[in-house]
């Protein structure tokens, strides 16, 4: 027994020492590595931690790890699945260094003085931005925001089951064509569904005319009551890849993914116009680490980082060269009509923020869904 005990103690000690040694050596090599590559991030940026708040499944697989390695910093990522969810957290006083909200939400954050201007000297890569996504109305000279992804909203349809002539003739109204009853995915958000209805009726999607909104409400209600639509958000991707339905209102980036995975599917942008949307990186006013935030934004706008993002997610890059390469000859999305956004079409609009209208639409939307 005694003998055994000695053995055990010796073993534990040796294991413990082995650990101590490896710990020493690894920490040594780690320090040496970072100092050799870059300056001490704390001296340079004031901190070595960046808090990023982004959409779920919206980044290339190695974006964060590459940035961490290159700059010797640590990135804490949190995810949101709607602009409103993000806004609620920001309003509650949570602090992040970089957010990636959509156009109208950037407008609202600006109206609340919740953002700080970008340090353009730290972000030379702003010059890489694609023509169509620069200087949009919500931030006319990109003082506060650096676009991340952009695109349109259109209809994905199954070529075998949907007559393209119906789509071309009826536009969005194809969603009310009794031929396709029970075969429809609608996008479950008041913003996108009212866009469809208002565009189909020939109105602006930013209207605040009560009669027009009422008409759009009736349009959606009729669709709800007669067509048995299913309202989804991200589930639309799997649903259409599996061919569960024949028609779906889809964001262009998701459409890119669907078309890559299921060759029966095609993408159609109605002539009545659509929502030309963009998501952009911004720095909140209460960011603890604005310097590192600017560095991160600059990093995302490099060719490699932008390429990685667009490759992994399928959304259109805000980087001109990446966008051209991906949609051009030999590019990953060469033959994918959903990837390249429609530019300069007069009936396409950028969504504007209007809190009163939003509340009203949101209420009408829950009523649309709850009727029948």
């Amino acid at each position, binding site marked *: 027994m005694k003998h055994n005990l000695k053995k055990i103690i010796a073993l534990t000690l040796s294991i413990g020492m082995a650990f101590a040694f490896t710990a020493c050596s690894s920490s040594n090599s780690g320090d040496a590595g970072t100092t050799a590559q870059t300056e001490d991030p704390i001296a340079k940026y004031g901190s070595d931690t960046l808090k990023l708040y982004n959409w779920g499944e919206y980044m290339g697989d190695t974006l964060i790890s590459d940035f961490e390695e290159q700059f010797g910093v640590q990135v804490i990522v949190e995810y949101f699945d709607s602009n409103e969810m993000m806004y609620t957290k920001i309003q509650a006083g949570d602090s992040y260094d970089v957010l990636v909200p959509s156009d109208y939400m950037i407008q609202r954050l600006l109206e609340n003085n919740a953002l700080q201007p970008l340090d353009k000297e730290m972000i030379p890569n702003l010059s890489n931005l694609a023509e169509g996504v620069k200087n949009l109305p919500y931030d006319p000279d990109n003082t506060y925001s650096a676009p991340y992804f952009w695109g349109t909203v259109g209809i994905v349809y199954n070529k075998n089951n949907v007559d393209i002539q119906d789509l071309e003739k009826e536009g969005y109204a194809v969603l009310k064509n009794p031929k396709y009853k029970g075969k429809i995915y609608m996008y479950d958000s008041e913003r996108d569904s009212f866009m469809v209805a208002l565009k189909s009726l020939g109105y602006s999607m930013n209207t605040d005319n009560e009669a027009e909104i009422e008409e759009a409400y009736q349009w959606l209600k009729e669709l709800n009551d007669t067509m048995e639509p299913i309202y989804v958000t991200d589930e639309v991707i799997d*649903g259409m890849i599996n061919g569960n339905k024949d028609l779906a209102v889809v964001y262009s980036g998701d459409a890119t993914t669907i078309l890559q995975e299921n060759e029966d599917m095609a993408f159609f942008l109605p002539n009545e116009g659509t929502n030309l949307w963009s998501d952009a990186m911004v720095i909140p006013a209460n960011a603890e680490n604005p310097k590192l935030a600017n560095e991160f934004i600059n990093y995302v706008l490099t060719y490699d980082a932008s390429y990685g993002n667009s490759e992994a997610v399928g959304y259109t890059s805000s980087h001109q060269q990446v966008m051209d390469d991906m949609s051009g000859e030999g590019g990953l999305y060469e033959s994918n009509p959903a990837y390249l956004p429609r530019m300069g079409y007069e009936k396409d609009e950028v969504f504007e923020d209007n809190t009163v209208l939003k509340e009203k639409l*949101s209420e009408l*939307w829950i009523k649309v869904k*709850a009727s029948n």
Partner: protein
Amino acid sequence: MRQFKNMAYPYMIWISVMIVVPMLMIIMYAFTKHGNDVATFWFTFENFSYFFSDIIFINVLKQSLYIAVVTTLICIVLGYPAAYIMANSKEKNKVLLMLLITFPTWINMLVRTYAWMGILQDNGILHNILTSLGLEIKLLHTDFAVILGMVYNFIPFMILQIYTSLTKMDKSLLEAASDLGADKVQCFLRVTFPLSLPGVISGITLVFLPAMSSFFIPKLLGGGQYVLIGNVIESQFLTAGNWNFGSAISLIMAVIIMISMYITKKIESKNGIEKGRTAN
């Protein structure tokens, strides 16, 4: 005993900070609305009158009650025999059965509900099996799917409650009953069942309340077009940003729940008197 009273203070503080204060805030929101620059908010009944004046909201409330009641009934019908079998099985099997029932709850509820989506959807496993048998039925996005999801998620609460009350029961009462000439059915109906009622009632509370207010089960299994009262509240807070109306609906729910708790309490105390009599 008295010195232990002090130990309740941390809990009292916890309760007041985490339950009473939020409750008061909900009440405050429910009875106010955003005002202008002079008065930031004012008192109003508007949120409530808006809810009750619109037939759509009333229908949503009815539908939610209907789903919750059906779910609870199915949980009792399926859960009682399961609990009964469990309580009367061998000690060794009891552990195994208990494990089988609690096992699914180790996995996150959301993940389990997503799994059902895969099983029920068009071209999903169950749908394909039924189709190959010649039955072309839509499973996902129906009442059936929502109720199935709720029963599946909440039935462990019912089984465990009934099981506990059955195992706590004094077995000598059963022996006495059969000594006095009662057959098995009579034993069950006149001794076992009345004594297990408290378990059934607390099971009802534990199933009915979440079934009434769940919003992600109807959202996932019913599709976005399936709107229950929980979904309305969620949308008011998260997308509409109308916290006042959302709070008003929450308060209406709270009142309904309080009334149902009061009724179950009544039944329970009545039962308690009977129990007292049998014990005498």
